[in-house]
């Protein structure tokens, strides 16, 4: 089964990179972009086939390494492969 982890900066944590992207979009003539937040997507191929177990395991991975929970939050998305 596949897992996709979305890691985003927590609300309230200033995202200088997202802000630079917003400026660049503005200078390209794209109007109406109020805010840009940049994060990352991490895809995992798992041998586990049980969704509940897979989610629990990936959550442990997020807490241990994939996200820095001081500044980041994460969401886990699973799909059968």
């Amino acid at each position, binding site marked *: 089964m596949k897992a996709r982890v979305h890691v985003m900066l927590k609300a309230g*944590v*200033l995202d*200088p*990179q997202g802000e*630079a992207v917003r400026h660049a979009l503005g200078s390209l003539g794209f109007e109406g972009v109020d805010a840009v937040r940049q994060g990352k997507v991490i895809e995992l191929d798992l041998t586990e086939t049980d969704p509940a177990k897979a989610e629990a395991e990936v959550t442990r991975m997020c807490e*241990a*390494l*994939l996200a*820095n929970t*001081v*500044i980041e939050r994460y969401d886990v998305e699973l799909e059968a492969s």
Partner: protein
Amino acid sequence: MKAAVLVFPGSNCDRDLAVAFRQAGFEVDMVWHKETDLPSGVDVVGVPGGFSYGDYLRSGAIAARSPIISALRGHADRGGYAIGICNGFQVLTETGLLPGALMRNAGLKFICKPVALTVATAASDFTCRYQAGAEVVFPVAHHDGNYVVTDDTLAALRGEDRVAFRYAEDLNGSTDRIAGVLSENRRVLGLMPHPERAADAALGMSDGTALFAALASAGVTA
């Protein structure tokens, strides 16, 4: 006095740090990150600057999960001294030994220059040879030096006098211009500027010498 300098793939200030320790009178061992134990009798562990693991995932994140880190954690738990400089500071925040996190500089640029710092507290075995409020100049060389903490943690750091150094002027967006912080027991210091690159008058700067000299006379084996 004995110091251990940890070496990760991508560390590049490890030898500079060893030189600064030796000049202050330390015997120095270089310790590869795959080791699981520190050499016996180590008083101070140095976590050097550089780009451990190419800054993959987050700066310092992979290094903070290296085998040697549990030995470092044990050393710190026993009251041993540790100093993390630049990438080493990022590693120490990733391990949780120091609070907060280091994000991309607010101006998005890599900043590489000598900067003026204010010594925020002299009440530590790292900073006791400076006057609180004194200005020192150390070089910085970082892309991810923007120190971020929650309001609660910031209040604790201020209340417990745990901010060690501040940038004299805003440099990279760091909360409260924080350049370096101490652990609760004041024996673990992390800072983005490089005192080890300001520890030899022949190289132009020597304000860092006092930090290593202070540590050398602290003399407690964990």
